[in-house]
C-alpha cells in the first residue's frame, strides 16, 4: 500500500511538472525545423531533392545545379524576367553584343551577307565597370599587396576545414579577362565540360587549344596543379581592354548568343583558379566545384548538399533593378508592383534536402517551405478542375492562401520510331518506306495522347503537334499549328482523327486489320522503355491497348537506363520513349533532334548525336542547315513551317506532349513568374516574413492532449501493474510449488 502511495505521488508530481512545461510552451511553435534565431528574417525556404554534383560553371549543367550557379555567377547576358517570348537582355554586359561577320581575309561583312561567305562571326562584348566579386579568400592580400592564401602551407591549413575558416577575404572588380579565362577552361584537360564537344565545333581554335593545354599540363606534371590559362592564348577569344572581349565563332551560329546567358560563359577570376589549385586545399575538398566564386546577387555560404545549401546576399552586388515592363497580364497579377526597385529583395535562401515527397509536402503545408511542386499523390488534395480544362487550387489550399502558378515547359515527351528498323522505318525501296510511313501515321492517330495526359499526367500537359514546344519561336498556335496527319479542325479546335482512318492507313501499309498481308502473321511491334516501377504498369497496359485498337500486338521491353541508352545508340530499339528539355528558346534546339547528321547510328563525326530516331531526310536536312543560320523572322518561319510539315507527314515520332508545370506558392511569396529557361530568378522574388511567421504560428500550434493522455495511460497501466506484480510475486512460490507437486 505504501509503495502505491509513493508511486502515485511521484506520478502526480511529474504530471504537474509536465503540464506546467506544456502550459508555458503554449503559443510557441515546436515543429519549426529552422533555428529560433531565424524567426521573422527575410529568408526564402526552398527545397532540393537531388544533390548537385558540380558547382563549377564549366561543368554544372543539370537543373539541380543551375538553380544554385545561376544565382551566383553572372554571364554577360540574361533573359528578361517578365517578357514573353523569352528576350535576352544584358546582365554584366553594358549592352547587347556587337555581332560582326568576317570573310576569310578578315574583312567585315554586312549583316545580310550570305552564310557561305562568312568565315567567322565575332561577338564583341563590353561589360559594365564597377561589378565586383563576392568577398573571397582568393582575393585576400596583406598590406604589401601580396596574396595571403595563394601558397598555403600545412601550418596555415591546420585550422582550415571549410572556406569560411579563412579569416581574411577580399574582392576585386570584374574584368573582361575573367570571361576569357572561363572560355579557355571549357577545354581544360582536367575539367570535363559537357559542352566542350559542341563548343569545339564553333569557338575558333578551341579543339586545338585542348591539345595545347594537355601538352602544357604533361610538361609540368608533378610540379604544380595550377595551369595559368592567361599564358596560353586562344584563337577564338581576344581581350580588347579591361572591359571588352571578343569571341570568334566559326561561320555563323546565331544560337551562340543564348549560350552567353548560361553559367558556362560566366567569369572565373584567375586568382580563384590559383587558390583552388593548391593540393592541400583539394585534399580538404575545398575546390571551385564546391565553393563557387562569382559576382552574382548571391553567394554560397553553406554547402552541405546532404542536408542544406545556403545562399546569402552578396554584399558587393548592386546596380540591378526589378524590370519596369512586362506582359499585360503581369500588371494584373501584381508582378510589376516592385518595378524599378533595387534587387535582390531576399537576404538569404535556405535550400533543404528532402528526398521524400511526404515530408516535403507536409512541411510546405505547415509553412516551412515557401513553394512546392505537386506530386501525383497530393494532386487531388491540391488542385481541382473548374471546367474548360482550367485548374485552380482546392478550397483547403485557398483557405491557407496558397495559389497555383502554371507554365508550359519548353520540353517535349515523345515516342520515337527507329527509322533504321525495317518494319517501322522502312527498307531500301520507296514502296517499303511509304508503307512504313503509313504504319507510323496510323499509330500516331491511334495513340490518344489527350487521354494519356488526362489519365497519367493529371491533365498537366498539352498534346504536341510537332517537335517545337509552345513559347518557342516557330511554334504555331491554333489551326495553323495543328498536325493534319493526326487531327481535323472541328469546332475551333483540333479533333483526333477516327480510328477508321488509322485502320485504313494500316491496311494501306500492308497490314489490314493488323495482319501482315505477305506472311499472314499478326503484326508485333516492340516498345523499349526504361525499367518501370509497379505503378507504371498501368501506363504500359494503356499503351498496349492503344496499339490493340489497330490489332497490333505491342511487346514491352523494359531494361535499365544504361542498357536502354545502349540500345538506342546501337539502333537496336524499334519504338522507344524519350524526352527533351530545351537549352534555349530557339526552334533549332528542337529541330536538330531530327537532323540527319545528328543520328545516333552511323555518326562518325565525333560530335554529340541526339537524333535517337535516326531520321534522315535530305530535304529536311537541307532546310535545317538553312534555318539554323538564319535570324528569326518571316523567312525563317516559312522554312520552319515546311520542316514541321515534312516531319508531320513522315511521323518519325509520336509527337507526345509538352508537360505543364504546376507550382504552389504561399501568399507571402511574391513576384513569381515561373519558367524553365531563365534560372537566375531568385533575385526578383519577395517574401513577407512577418505574414509567414504569423501563419506558421496559426498553423502549427502544438497539440498537447496526446502527451497528457499518454501520461495518464502510462500511470493507469503502471499503478495496477505494480500491484499485480507484487501480488503475482507473493503467490509465485506457492504456484511453483503446486506445479511441481502436481
Amino acid at each position, binding site marked *: 500500500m505504501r509503495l502505491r502511495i509513493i508511486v502515485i505521488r511521484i506520478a502526480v508530481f511529474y504530471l504537474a511538472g509536465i503540464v506546467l512545461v506544456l502550459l508555458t510552451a503554449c503559443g510557441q511553435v515546436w515543429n*519549426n525545423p529552422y533555428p529560433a534565431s531565424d524567426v521573422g528574417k527575410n529568408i526564402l525556404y526552398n527545397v532540393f531533392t537531388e544533390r548537385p554534383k558540380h558547382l563549377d560553371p564549366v561543368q554544372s549543367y543539370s537543373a539541380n545545379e543551375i538553380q544554385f550557379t545561376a544565382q551566383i555567377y553572372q554571364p554577360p547576358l540574361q533573359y528578361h524576367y517578365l517578357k514573353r517570348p523569352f528576350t535576352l537582355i544584358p546582365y554584366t554586359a553594358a549592352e547587347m553584343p556587337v555581332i560582326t561577320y568576317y570573310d576569310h581575309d578578315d574583312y567585315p561583312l554586312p549583316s545580310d551577307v550570305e552564310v557561305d561567305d562568312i568565315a567567322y562571326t565575332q561577338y564583341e562584348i563590353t561589360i559594365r565597370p564597377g561589378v565586383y566579386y563576392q568577398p573571397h579568400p582568393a582575393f585576400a592580400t596583406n598590406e604589401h599587396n601580396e596574396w595571403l592564401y595563394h601558397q598555403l602551407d600545412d601550418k596555415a591549413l591546420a585550422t582550415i576545414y571549410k572556406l569560411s575558416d579563412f579569416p581574411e577575404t577580399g574582392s576585386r572588380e570584374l574584368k573582361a579577362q575573367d570571361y576569357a579565362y572561363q572560355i579557355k577552361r571549357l577545354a581544360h584537360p582536367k575539367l570535363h565540360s559537357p559542352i566542350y564537344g559542341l563548343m569545339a565545333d564553333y569557338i575558333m581554335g578551341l579543339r586545338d587549344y585542348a591539345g595545347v593545354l594537355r601538352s602544357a599540363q604533361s610538361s609540368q606534371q608533378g610540379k604544380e596543379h595550377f595551369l595559368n590559362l592567361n599564358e596560353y592564348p586562344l584563337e577564338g577569344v581576344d581581350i580588347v581592354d579591361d572591359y571588352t572581349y571578343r569571341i570568334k565563332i566559326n561561320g555563323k551560329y546565331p544560337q551562340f548568343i543564348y549560350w552567353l546567358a548560361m553559367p558556362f560563359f560566366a567569369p572565373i577570376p584567375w586568382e580563384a583558379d590559383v587558390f583552388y589549385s593548391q593540393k592541400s586545399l583539394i585534399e580538404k575538398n575545398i575546390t571551385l*566545384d564546391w565553393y563557387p566564386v562569382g559576382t552574382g546577387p548571391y553567394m554560397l555560404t553553406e554547402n552541405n548538399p546532404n542536408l542544406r545549401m545556403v545562399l546569402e546576399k552578396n554584399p558587393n552586388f548592386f546596380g540591378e533593378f526589378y524590370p519596369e515592363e512586362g506582359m499585360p497580364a503581369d500588371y494584373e497579377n501584381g508582378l510589376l508592383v516592385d518595378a524599378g526597385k533595387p534587387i535582390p529583395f531576399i537576404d538569404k535562401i535556405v535550400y533543404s534536402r528532402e528526398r521524400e515527397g511526404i515530408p516535403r509536402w507536409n512541411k510546405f503545408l505547415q509553412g516551412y517551405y515557401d513553394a512546392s511542386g505537386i506530386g501525383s499523390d497530393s494532386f487531388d488534395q491540391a488542385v481541382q478542375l473548374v471546367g474548360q480544362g482550367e485548374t485552380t487550387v482546392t478550397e483547403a489550399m485557398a483557405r491557407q492562401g496558397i495559389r497555383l502558378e502554371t507554365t508550359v515547359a519548353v520540353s517535349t515527351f515523345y515516342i520515337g520510331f527507329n527509322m533504321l528498323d525495317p518494319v517501322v522505318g522502312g527498307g531500301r525501296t520507296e514502296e517499303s518506306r511509304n508503307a512504313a510511313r503509313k504504319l507510323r501515321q496510323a499509330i500516331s492517330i491511334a495513340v490518344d495522347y489527350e487521354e494519356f495526359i488526362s489519365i497519367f499526367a493529371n491533365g498537366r500537359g498539352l498534346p504536341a503537334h510537332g517537335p517545337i514546344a509552345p513559347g518557342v519561336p516557330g511554334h504555331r498556335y491554333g489551326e495553323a499549328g495543328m498536325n493534319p496527319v493526326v487531327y481535323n479542325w472541328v469546332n475551333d479546335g483540333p479533333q483526333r482523327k477516327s480510328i477508321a482512318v488509322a485502320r485504313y492507313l494500316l491496311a494501306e501499309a500492308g497490314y489490314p486489320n493488323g495482319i501482315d498481308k505477305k506472311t499472314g502473321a499478326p503484326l508485333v511491334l516492340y516498345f523499349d522503355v526504361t525499367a518501370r516501377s509497379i505503378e507504371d504498369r498501368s501506363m504500359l497496359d494503356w499503351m498496349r491497348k492503344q496499339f490493340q485498337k489497330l490489332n497490333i500486338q505491342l511487346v514491352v521491353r523494359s531494361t535499365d537506363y544504361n542498357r536502354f541508352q545502349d540500345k538506342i545508340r546501337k539502333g537496336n530499339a524499334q519504338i522507344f520513349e524519350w524526352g527533351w528539355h530545351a537549352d534555349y528558346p530557339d526552334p533549332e534546339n528542337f529541330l536538330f533532334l531530327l537532323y540527319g547528321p545528328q543520328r545516333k547510328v552511323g555518326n562518325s563525326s565525333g*560530335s554529340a548525336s541526339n537524333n535517337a530516331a535516326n531520321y534522315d531526310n535530305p530535304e529536311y536536312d537541307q532546310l535545317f542547315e538553312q534555318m539554323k543560320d538564319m535570324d528569326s523572322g518571316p523567312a525563317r518561319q516559312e522554312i520552319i513551317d515546311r520542316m514541321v510539315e515534312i516531319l508531320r507527314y513522315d511521323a518519325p515520332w509520336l509527337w507526345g506532349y509538352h508537360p505543364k508545370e504546376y507550382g504552389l506558392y504561399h501568399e507571402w511569396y511574391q513576384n513569381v513568374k515561373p519558367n524553365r529557361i531563365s534560372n537566375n530568378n531568385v533575385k526578383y522574388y519577395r517574401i513577407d516574413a512577418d505574414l509567414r511567421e504569423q501563419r506558421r504560428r496559426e498553423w502549427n500550434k502544438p497539440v498537447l492532449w496526446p502527451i497528457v493522455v499518454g501520461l495518464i495511460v502510462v500511470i493507469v497501466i503502471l499503478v495496477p501493474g505494480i500491484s499485480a506484480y507484487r501480488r*503475482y510475486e507473493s503467490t509465485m512460490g506457492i504456484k511453483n510449488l503446486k506445479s511441481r507437486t502436481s
Partner: protein
Amino acid sequence: MLSYIIRRILYAVPILVGVNLLTFTLFFVVNTPDDMARMQLGIKYVTPEAIEKWKIERGYDKPLLFNPKLNGIDQLTHTIFFEKSIAMFAFDFGKSDEGRDIGYEIKSRMLPSFAIALPVFILGLFSYITFALIMVFFRTTYIDFWGVVLCVALMSISSLFYIIGGQFLVSKLWHLVPISGFATGLDATRFLILPVIIGVISSAGANTRWYRTIFLEEMEKEYVRTARAKGLSEHLVLFKHVLKNAMIPILTGAVVIMPLLFLGSLIVESFFGIPGLGSYTIDAINSQDFAVVRAMVFLGSVLYIVGLILTDISYTLVDPRIRFN
C-alpha cells in the same frame, strides 16, 4: 587470445577480397565505365572523345579483371579491379567520381548516422529486454498472452508505415516535433526524438519476442529451480540469474551490430532528412558512383567482421568457461 584475434583478422582478408570482387562484378554487370562517364558528363552533348577522356582520367580505361595485352602479373595488376581495390585495404578510399574525398565524406557523415543509431540501439536493447522479462515474469497469464499478440502485431507492420504514421501523427497533426531535418549540437535532439522512438518501436515486436524466447529457455534450467529453492524472489531470479545466463545469445545479436551503427539506416535517414551514411550510399547508387559504392560495401564488410570478433571476445567476458586458446 591475441593469436586468435590475429588469426581472425587474417581470415578476414580473403573474405574482404571476395566481397570486393563480388561488388565489383555486380556493379560492372549493370554499369559499364562508359555508362558511368555519361552519368557524370550528362547525356545531352557528350562526345565519344569526352567519354574517353573521363575514363582515362579516372582510370576506367583499363580492362575490368584481366589485361590480355600484358604479360605475367601485370595481366592482373593493370586492371580496374586491382587498381581500385588495393588501396582500400589501407583504408584509402580515394575520390568519388564527383572528385570528393570519400574518407572525408565518411568521417563527416558517420556522426549523424550514429546520433540516431546509438540511442535506438541502447533504448531498444533496454526496452526489449525489460518487456521480455516482464512477459516472462507474467508468463502463462493474460499479460504474457496479450504481450505476444502485441509483439506479433508490431512485427507484422512495415517499418515504412511506422515512419509515415509517426510523421503524420506526431509532426503533422500534433505539431510536436519537426517532420524532418537535422542540426548539430543540442538542437539535434528535437530532430532525433521521433526517428529514435520510431526506430525503437519498429523493431520492438521481433526483438522482444526473441528475448522472451531466450529467457523462457533459461527459465527451464536447473539453476533457476535452485535459486527459487533458496527462497529468492522471482524478480531476483530473473534479473540476477536468468538475465546473466542469457547474455551469450543477447551479445551475439547485439555486439555484432554495434560497429554497423555507424553505417546508418537507408529509409530512416531518407525520410527524416538525416545527412548520414545511409543516404550517402543511396545517392552513390543512384548516381552510379562506383568509388563510393565500393567503399561503403568494403566498410560494411570490415565493420561486420569487427563486430563478429568483438562478439567472440565478449563471450569470454560473460562466460568464464569460454577460452580461445
